[in-house]
C-alpha cells in the first residue's frame, strides 16, 4: 500500500455524485487506496456527473464530465457487473481485502445485490460499512430520493437563506452534497479509528438531511425555549446577524454592475471607527452610536450605508475598512477568488491534475495543511475501468488471460 497518513487503508468504494465521492476524495488525498467500482453495463452512468457539464472543450461523453474528475482525483477505477455471479465473487474477494465499504446509493441497493452489512461482515469481520443517503435507511422516508437541494430544503438550510417577504433564496449550489460528503468522511474515519483501537467494525447509516438539520442548532432552542419560530414576519433576513446581534451588517451595493461589499460592524467601537471613516453627519452624530439604536433602526441604517457604499470600488472599500479594524469583504466572483486572490493558489488550493481523457485541469484542493502527513492531489479521476488490470491482477491475483475473459463475458 501507499504513502501518506492513510496509506495503510483500502476503501471498496461505490460512492458517486459529490455527497459520496467527495468523502472518499478526502481519504484518497491522504493516501488511502480508494477503489471506485462502476457498472460496465451502464458505463458508470449511475454517477450523472460522468457526462455532465462543465466541459473543458467541445468533447462530450462519460469520460469528460469535469465534476466527476474534480470529486474522484487520486482514486483507482474498476468496472464490475454485479448482475453476474462471477462479479459477486470478485466483489467478495475485494471486500475481504478492504478496510471499509462505502456507498451513497438509494437505501437498500447494496442489500439487494446481496451485500448488506451481515454479508459484508461474513466476508470481513471487522469491516466498516458507511452508507449515505438523503434520509437514512430507517424511518418513514427511508425510500425517499434526495440530492443536495432536497436535503437542504428538508433540513432547514434553504429556508434560513433569504430576505424577508420573499421566497427562500436557498443555496445556489449543493451545499449539502459537499457537507454530506464531509460527514461521510467523518463517519468512515471515526469508525476506522474505533476499529483501530478495538478491532470492531460497524455499519454507519448516515442521513444527509439529519446532518444538515444539525447545522441550525440555536434556532431549535429559540423555538423550543422562547416559543419563537424562524417562520415569522420579517424573518429570516440572513444577511443580517441576530446571533450575535450586529448592525450594520449586510451586503451593500458598490460601483459597478452587480458588485457588492459585505460589512459587519461588530460593536460600538467598530461603529465609532466606521462612522469616523464615513465622515458624514448621519454617521458621526449620536443617533447611531449605541448598538441598541442601530439594531432598532436597521432598515433606515442599511439605507444610509447602501447610499454611501454605492460610489465605492468594492475592493478598495473593503481594504480601507479592514485597515481600520472593521470587518468587510468584497463579494467575490469565482475568477476573483481563484485567480485574482493569490493567497488561494499560494495555499495550494487549486492543484492541477492530468486526466487521461480531459487532459490537464485544475481541481478543488483541501483547506487544511498537516505538518507531518499532508495531503497530495496529483492524479486525475480514473477512466471507466482504467485500473482493472492493476486491481484484478495485482490485488486479486488474476492472470491477464483471466482478466481478458472477464471482459469478454461482460463481468468487468
Amino acid at each position, binding site marked *: 500500500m501507499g504513502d501518506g497518513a492513510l496509506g495503510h487503508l483500502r476503501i471498496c468504494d461505490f460512492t458517486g455524485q459529490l455527497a459520496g465521492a467527495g468523502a472518499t476524495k478526502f481519504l484518497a488525498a491522504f493516501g488511502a487506496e480508494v477503489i471506485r467500482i462502476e457498472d460496465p453495463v451502464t458505463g458508470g452512468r449511475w454517477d450523472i456527473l460522468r457526462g455532465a457539464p462543465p466541459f473543458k472543450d467541445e468533447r462530450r461523453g462519460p469520460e469528460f464530465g469535469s465534476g466527476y474528475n474534480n470529486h474522484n482525483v487520486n482514486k483507482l477505477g474498476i468496472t464490475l457487473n454485479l448482475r453476474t455471479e462471477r462479479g459477486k465473487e470478485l466483489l467478495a474477494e475485494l471486500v475481504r481485502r478492504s478496510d471499509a465499504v462505502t456507498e451513497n446509493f438509494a437505501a437498500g441497493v447494496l442489500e439487494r445485490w446481496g451485500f448488506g452489512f451481515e454479508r459484508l461482515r461474513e466476508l470481513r469481520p471487522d469491516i466498516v460499512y458507511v452508507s449515505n443517503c438523503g434520509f437514512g435507511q430507517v424511518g418513514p422516508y427511508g425510500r425517499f430520493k434526495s440530492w443536495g437541494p432536497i436535503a437542504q430544503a428538508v433540513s432547514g438550510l434553504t429556508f434560513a437563506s433569504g430576505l424577508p417577504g420573499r421566497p427562500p433564496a436557498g443555496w445556489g449550489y449543493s451545499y449539502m452534497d459537499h457537507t454530506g460528503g464531509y460527514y461521510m468522511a467523518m463517519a468512515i474515519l471515526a469508525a476506522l479509528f474505533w476499529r483501530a483501537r478495538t478491532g470492531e467494525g460497524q455499519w454507519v*447509516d448516515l442521513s444527509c438531511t439529519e446532518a444538515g438539520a444539525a447545522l441550525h442548532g440555536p434556532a431549535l*432552542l429559540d423555538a423550543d425555549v422562547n416559543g419563537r419560530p424562524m417562520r415569522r414576519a420579517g424573518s429570516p433576513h440572513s444577511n443580517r*446577524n441576530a446571533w450575535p446581534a450586529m448592525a450594520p451588517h449586510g451586503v451593500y451595493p458598490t460601483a459597478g454592475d452587480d458588485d457588492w461589499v459585505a460589512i459587519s460592524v461588530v460593536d460600538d467601537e467598530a461603529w465609532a471607527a466606521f462612522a469616523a471613516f464615513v465622515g458624514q453627519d448621519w454617521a458621526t452624530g449620536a443617533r447611531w452610536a449605541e448598538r441598541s439604536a442601530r439594531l432598532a433602526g436597521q432598515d433606515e441604517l442599511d439605507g444610509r450605508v447602501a447610499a454611501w457604499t454605492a460610489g465605492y470600488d468594492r475592493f478598495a472599500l473593503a481594504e480601507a475598512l479592514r485597515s481600520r479594524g472593521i470587518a468587510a469583504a468584497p463579494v467575490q466572483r469565482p475568477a476573483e477568488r481563484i485567480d485574482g486572490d493569490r493567497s488561494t493558489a499560494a495555499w495550494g488550493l487549486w492543484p492541477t491534475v492530468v486526466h487521461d481523457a480531459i487532459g490537464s485541469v485544475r481541481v478543488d484542493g483541501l483547506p487544511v495543511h498537516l505538518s507531518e502527513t499532508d495531503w497530495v492531489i496529483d492524479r486525475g479521476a480514473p477512466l471507466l475501468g482504467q485500473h482493472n488490470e492493476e486491481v484484478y491482477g495485482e490485488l486479486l491475483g488474476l492472470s491477464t488471460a483471466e482478466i481478458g475473459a472477464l471482459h469478454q463475458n461482460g463481468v468487468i
Partner: protein
Amino acid sequence: MTHTTPGGPLQGIVVVELAAELTAYTGKLLVDLGASVTLVEPAEGSPLRRYEPFLGDRPDPDRSLWWWHYQASKSSVTADLDTADGVARLQQLLAGADVVVEAERPGSLARRGIDETALRAANPRLLWVSISSHGAADPRSQQPSTDLTVLAEAGPVWSCGYDDHALPPVRGGGGQAGNVAAHYAVMSLLVALLAREERGHGQRIDVNAYAAANVTTEFASYTWLVAGETVQRQTGRHAAPRPTLPTQVEAADGRWVNTGPPRRGADFVALAEWLGQLGVADEFDEFVLLQMGAELEHIGMDQMEADDLVGEIFAAGRAAMFFLAGKLSAYDLFVGLQERGMPAGIIYSPDEVAADPHFVARGWVRPVEHPELGRPVGYAGAPITFPATPARPLRPAPRLSDRQ
C-alpha cells in the same frame, strides 16, 4: 452487532478547546463523536456567553442559547492567558491532552508565552488544531472578519440569492463559514488520529476557513477552473452560467417545496395519473406532453440539449409539479412526489424539522434536562449515529459557576 460500547468512537480522547467562535462547532462535533472536551475561558467568562438568543430574552452568561447549543456536554476551566498563572494552567492541561483546538489570532499565543513547539515536545502525541479565518500566514487572519465577510469573499454569497440581481446576493444563515471550517478540522483531526495510531506522534493542523468555504461552492469553482465561465445566482436553485428553469414552488398553504427534475417515463405516467385522481387533468394544458413523456425511458441532460421536444417534455413535467402545488399543501406535494418516485423536499424552517414524522421516528431530537426550566429542552440531534458506540446523552453547557 455483537455488542455495543456507549460513548462514541472518540471516547477517551481528551480535547482542550480555547473557547472561540471558530472553535465552537469543532468542539461540539468532537463531543458528538465521544471525546471529552474542556473549554478554556477567561475569568469573566467567554464573550460567546453573550451571544443571542437568550432564554426569555434576558441577557446573562448562563442564558445564551447559542452557548447552550455549541457547548453542551463540554466542561470548562478558567485560565486567563494574559497572566502567567493562566499560561501555566493551560500548559498543565495540554500536558495530558490528546488534542488542542484553538482559533487565536496567529502568533498571539506565542506572544503570551505559550510555546507550541515546546508544548508539543513535552507531549509528542499532542495534535494541535489551529483554525483561522484565512490561514496562519495570511495578513487577513490578523484583521477582523465575520461569518458574513468570509462567505462573501470565498464565493458562497456570489452564488446565492434571487433571479432579480437588483437584490443583493444572500448569505446562507446559521454560521456556515465556521461550520465548514469545523467539518474540515474534524475530518483532518481524524486523519491525524489514525496516523498517530500508526506513527505514534502528533502533528499540527492548519485549518483555513476562507479556503474551506472556497472549496465548498461546487459548480461555481470548477465551472471557472475548467471552462472559464462564471455562474449567476438564481432564486432557490443552482447558480449557473446560463439561466435554468425554476425548481422551487409555493404550495397552496403558502409554504414552499423544492422539486427535482422528471427524468423517467414512469415519472410522467405518475404525474398524469395524479392529475387524473385529483380530477384536474383537464385544467392542465400540457397534459399531452406528459403522455409523450411516458414513452421515454430516461431523460439525460445531454438529450435535452440535443432534442427540443425532449426539452419541452421535460418542461411539461416540471409544469405539472408546479400545477399540482397550486392544489396541494407543501407537505402533501412533497410526500406525494416522493411516494411516486420523484425527488422533492419540503422547505422547512430549521425548527420545523424537529416535528417532522421521519425525524420523530428516528428519535433525532435530543432531550436535555434543564433544571432552570423544570423540563427537558429539545436539542439538535447528532449528525452521525454509530451503532457500535452510541453517543451518551447531552449535558447542559457549563454555567459560569460550574467552571473549575
